[in-house]
């Protein structure tokens, strides 16, 4: 028994224990999805007549907004005159409203100055003074806009016609920004493009007074640098910040005084992901129609309490049957398989609970389905190895040499098959939205944990057992045939 194997064994058991304890200590609990637990339902109504197409577009935008990670599985659907949003696990109606964010508006604001991020939670400072006319007045007079936690203007003071201090993406800087000069309404499209080997965001504005004209007005000021849009040290032009939901998406310099409406490019040190995020924010910041929250209500689970209870009872009985079968068939090796299942199960539970608490990952019926099938696949990893063992022993090897020989072969099979599942999970995760994405996450997680439990627990554990004299003497107790059975079968 190499020492490495023992280290693996102890390490994985400790890790599983630690994960279980941590989950209990942090009081992490899986966030059950709408179908299992219910949540809060918000009914949004359009303030003006809207076409089905506009509402469908709004559905897509809101889905993106409430489900940034794509795993919370909200229910967003079009109603006759608006959109209905149901969020899982949220029991605070105000929080639901905040998440749905009907007020989110994309604003273009000139940048007056940039400050470093406040590290500590300093008390708020500044006052809501009557709107000053220009940046220089604010900076010169020291009349800073009201700020709250972390030195940024809180949402209730974030008005379009006021000076504000807002944080940027990535949280490296704070910006002192002038009044909004343009809103998301002016925008008709935004896309991330690879131009000259650099990721850039191409913006198309609407034509007319509320679109390109308003933008060119501020561009002219920023290009030369004025009191409204000063040129900061180290820059050659003034900057305009694009703000969504109280956060600066990007704050590019204005490199021309006049733009054509479909030829505005934001270049910078974007990587692919950042460019996509900015384009997404620009596109989705603006809903095609204004929606107001009409009412919010707590909703019950869609599949109902009775179904849930039945599911839990059935799950427990099902697991019990699996245990019975495995131990009946593989005896002591079956117990190893069950222990391996317990290890991967406890790790999976810890991860689901953590993500549920931290990132809004919802466990829905679909996720439960994924997990049920994952149990089957986890057990299969053991079955593959044990059957290899039996085969080798029947082929005339001793039990002990079979244990060493069969594991790499079996593990290679397991990896091959699991890789296919992982590829599937990865692609579904990257390329889909909604329930499919949640399923992909669970499938991927369960598959990885299966590999971990097999390599670090099941393999070393069987090797450890093979060291005992007992193993060689009573192969039947391990569900294995007696060594050298080959002669008996042939004759």
């Amino acid at each position, binding site marked *: 028994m190499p020492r490495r194997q023992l280290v693996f064994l102890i390490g994985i058991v400790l890790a599983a224990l630690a994960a279980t304890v941590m989950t209990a200590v942090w009081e992490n609990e899986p966030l059950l999805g709408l179908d299992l637990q219910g949540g809060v339902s918000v009914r949004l109504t359009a303030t003006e007549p809207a076409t089905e197409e506009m509402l469908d577009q709004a559905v897509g935008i809101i889905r993106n907004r409430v489900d940034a990670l794509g795993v919370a599985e909200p229910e967003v659907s079009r109603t006759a005159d608006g959109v209905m949003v149901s969020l899982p696990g949220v029991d605070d109606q105000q929080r639901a409203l905040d998440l749905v964010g009907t007020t989110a508006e994309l604003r273009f604001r000139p940048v007056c100055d940039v400050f470093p991020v406040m590290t500590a939670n300093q008390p708020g400072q500044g006052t809501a003074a009557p709107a000053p006319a220009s940046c220089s007045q604010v900076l010169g007079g020291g009349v800073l806009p009201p700020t709250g936690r972390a030195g940024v203007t809180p949402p209730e003071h974030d008005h379009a016609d006021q000076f504000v201090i807002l944080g940027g993406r990535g949280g490296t800087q704070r910006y002192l920004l002038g009044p909004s000069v343009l809103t998301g309404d002016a925008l008709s499209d935004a896309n991330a493009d690879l131009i000259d080997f650099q990721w850039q965001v191409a913006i198309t504005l609407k034509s007319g007074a509320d679109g390109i004209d308003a933008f060119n007005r501020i561009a002219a000021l920023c290009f030369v640098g004025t009191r409204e849009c000063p040129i900061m040290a180290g820059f050659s032009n003034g900057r305009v910040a694009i703000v969504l939901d109280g956060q600066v998406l990007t704050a590019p310099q204005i490199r021309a005084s006049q733009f054509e409406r479909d030829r505005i490019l934001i270049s910078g040190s974007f990587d692919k992901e950042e460019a996509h995020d900015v384009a997404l924010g620009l596109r989705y910041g603006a809903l095609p129609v204004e929606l107001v929250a009409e009412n919010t209500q707590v*909703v019950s689970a869609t599949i109902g309490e009775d*179904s849930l209870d039945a599911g839990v009872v059935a799950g427990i009985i099902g697991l019990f049957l699996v245990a019975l079968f495995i131990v009946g068939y593989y005896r002591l090796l079956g117990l190893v398989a069950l222990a391996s299942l317990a290890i991967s199960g406890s790790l999976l539970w810890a991860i689901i609970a953590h993500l549920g608490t931290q990132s809004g990952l919802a466990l829905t019926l679909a996720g439960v*389905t994924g997990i049920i099938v994952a149990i089957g*696949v986890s057990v299969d990893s053991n079955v*593959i190895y044990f059957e290899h063992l039996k085969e080798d022993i029947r082929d005339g090897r001793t039990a002990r040499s079979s244990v060493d020989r069969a594991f790499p072969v079996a593990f290679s099979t397991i990896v091959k098959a699991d890789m*296919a599942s992982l590829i599937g999970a990865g692609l579904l995760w990257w390329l889909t939205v909604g*329930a499919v994405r949640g399923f992909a996450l669970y499938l991927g997680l369960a598959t990885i944990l299966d590999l971990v439990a097999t390599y670090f627990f099941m393999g070393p554990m069987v090797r450890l057992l093979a060291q005992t004299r007992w193993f060689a003497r009573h192969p039947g107790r391990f569900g294995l045939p007696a060594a050298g059975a080959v002669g008996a079968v042939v004759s």
Partner: protein
Amino acid sequence: MSAFRRLYNGETTLDYPRWWRRAVTISLVAMLVSVASFGVRGLNLGIDFEGGTSYEVRAPGASVADARAVMAAFDAADARIQTLGDDLFRIRSEVADPARAGEIRDALAADLGTVETFEQVGPTWGSEVTDKAARALLVFFVVVALYITVRLEWKMAVGALAAVAHDIVVSVGFYSVLQLEITPATVIAFLTIMGYSLYDTIVVYDKVRDVTGRLGATERYSYTELMNLALNRVTMRSINTSITSALPVVSLLLIGSVIMGAGALQEFGVALLLGIVVGSYSSLFLASSLVTLLKEREERWQAIAGKLRTRGHTEGPTRLIGREEAAQPDTRSPDRIDGSRGVARRRPVQTTHLGGAVPPRPRKKRR
């Protein structure tokens, strides 16, 4: 030996190739029926995909069961019923026809309580989700085909994808024929079936590659015979895995739906169970037969088959490979273990089994 003992000891000597023709015929018929039903009857899509009508009814003192009873009169007992707050019910049904929806509203008003809102709702699972999922599946098929080609070989990629496609077509066809409702959970179940089927097929193929690589070098057996040996050796694994995967699902179906009467669990339990059975079946019968068909056309295997024919191994049941021969260690030079193409450069070493003596100690694997 009893059948179970033989199974337990891995001594199954099923003649898979004899069943292939029948299996392929049955599968083709099943797929035809599925496609025809899909074309003619279509799928019974639930409210999540098609939208429908939503009612909000204020009914103090009523229960979900009461609401369901009203809906049942309109053949819409599968409506989704939620409670909002204390005495408000939200009932969503896939009924889209305005006249029928109006009748339901009147019935709800008469038998349940005050209908506060009544409106058409759009799907929650929009076409955007479906489109993206469909595109992801296409990419998935391409990538997995490449993956199997790299790790195993392209003929196996063809077989695996054919088997997966068969499983999906048959499962969807099953839902179309019986007009079971398709919900998001069912779609997930279909995806699960796909993953399971692919996984199962790769496990079988890996065994096949192991056996054909090892014993193929002796040039004494046709590909069909080697395939049969590999399938027999993997049979127990397939049965055990199907059982352990199916047990929780069967329990969900029996206890969840039949005994405790929870319909929502039934819809995907059926899909999963079907998928597990069909997935295992397709790996053993379809994926294997297709690969055998492709491989037997290869020059190398044709040469071996020709040699065997001249020795008189022709028609009739597939020749079974005994354990003594099957247990021979790998005689090929180490550099051939991965790429098993072409005829062995070195003649296999004859390992002599002295009758009843201790078999030779297997070569220790170096690491």
